[in-house]
């Protein structure tokens, strides 16, 4: 007997839900550090957050292999994503178009697909679930999409990420793009954005 797994519902309205989820991501991606929110309208399987589920159901399909960090590699999650997105779930982050991970488990950014100089779009978009997102301080962002600077607080990411990010930015036009997610909230860091961390005393 095969074990059956309950599949949680996806978008309450698939067409409008996908459009709203995309616009939230587009807005976040074109104005790095701005926080938007999105959800499917139904609670996703643990440990996917509302925004992660809405982003995946809006953008991931059979054309985009997905990599899951070990914390997400659970039957309820893989069944949910395979059923609603129809995507392949793969073992190597370097082959992934999208990836889902937590801030603490985020692999070195160089492990993901980085694209090449002729086709920089062949890179992974990494959805990173963090412990908190805010606009009251922490990081100072600058680059395309930002008038002067934006402030962003990100809680619960592994040590060394921002050094890793600076190296990712050096690769431009290659590099990964991050979508940071907490609950229904999301903020995006496209590869162009420069992140200044507060100086340690």
């Amino acid at each position, binding site marked *: 007997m095969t074990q059956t797994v309950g599949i949680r519902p996806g978008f309450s309205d698939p*067409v409008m839900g*996908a*459009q*709203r989820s995309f616009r939230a991501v587009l807005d976040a991606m074109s104005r790095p550090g701005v926080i938007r929110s999105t959800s499917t309208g139904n609670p996703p399987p643990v440990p996917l957050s509302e925004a992660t589920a809405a982003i995946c159901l809006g953008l*991931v399909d059979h054309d985009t292999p997905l990599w899951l960090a070990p914390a997400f590699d659970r039957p309820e999650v893989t069944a949910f994503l395979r059923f609603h997105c129809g995507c392949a779930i793969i073992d190597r982050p370097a082959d992934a178009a999208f990836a889902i991970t937590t801030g603490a488990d985020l692999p070195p950014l160089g492990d993901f697909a980085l694209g090449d100089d002729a086709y920089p779009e062949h890179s992974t978009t990494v959805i990173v679930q963090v412990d908190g997102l805010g606009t009251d301080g922490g990081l100072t962002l600058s680059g395309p*999409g930002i008038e002067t600077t934006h402030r962003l607080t990100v809680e619960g990411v592994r040590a060394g990420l921002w050094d890793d990010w600076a190296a990712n930015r050096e690769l431009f036009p290659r590099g990964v*793009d991050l979508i940071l997610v907490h609950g229904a909230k999301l903020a995006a860091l496209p590869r162009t954005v420069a992140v200044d961390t507060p100086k340690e005393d």
Partner: protein
Amino acid sequence: MSTVIQHPSAQHPSAAKTETTPVAMIEGYNFAYLDEQTKRMIRRAILKAVAVPGYQVPFGSREMPLPYGWGTGGIQVTAAVIGPDDTLKVIDQGADDTTNAVNIRRFFAKTAGVATTEKTADASIIQTRHRIPEKPLTEEQILVYQVPIPEPLRQLEARETETRKMHALEEYGVMHVSLYEDIATFGRITRSYNYPVKVADRYVMAPSPIPKFDNPKMNRMPALQLFGAGREKRIYAVPPYTKVESLDFEDHPFTIESWEENCALCGATDSYLDEVVIDDKGGKMFVCSDSDYCQERREAGHVGDGGPPHTESDGR
């Protein structure tokens, strides 16, 4: 300039009546015409385009119910972006009421049921063929360009394999040589539209065939700019507040067109003017290319030296 218009109503020459009856949605198509899988593919391309400003992302352009050259790329981008809460404006060479603009507006009214407008300030998405509105755009707006030839180097190098390498290596010498040849032959850079720009100090990009008059408006524009080329199957983007520089030389700096005339209808001195032939005796006048800008100025009481004052019977 003192041309007197023969035209009794003295409307903007391209002015049409506002559609009074709302356009009914047609049944049997997905929201905004395209199927969901196509929209996802276009949406992913748009996100990559935003992440790599000025880079042309290939996408699987679909057959659309209008011919190539009529805005198939712009329509697909708009269809992937638009939602029920959006208000759409479509312009063709600045005017809201030419065949192309009217039909694309009606297309989205019919397939997505969205509100449409001719007022620049009221629109959340503006699809444009070859102009940027005169009124500065805001952070709440998205400008979608219809692009015929997305590759700025195509006239200089026909092979895609080569132009792709040139972009990858940031090797744009051939473009500068082309601009320099203009100077050597004519004493100035003669390109007046589709004038190449450099985006965020990296990619040379075709701004689509907008007049070079509009190039400075692209620089650090608060609105997101998306470009769709349907036949050539490319999408590219300029994020808000991104540096867009027109290519030039230190001793031959970039300049925009200027006119000795003002707009004959609204008297504007700062807008892009079209020359309009008004009779068969060589009579002509210059009017704003941006019909909404001209109308708004006339409603505010501005009068050019070529036309009678605005009256309520002008329609709109």
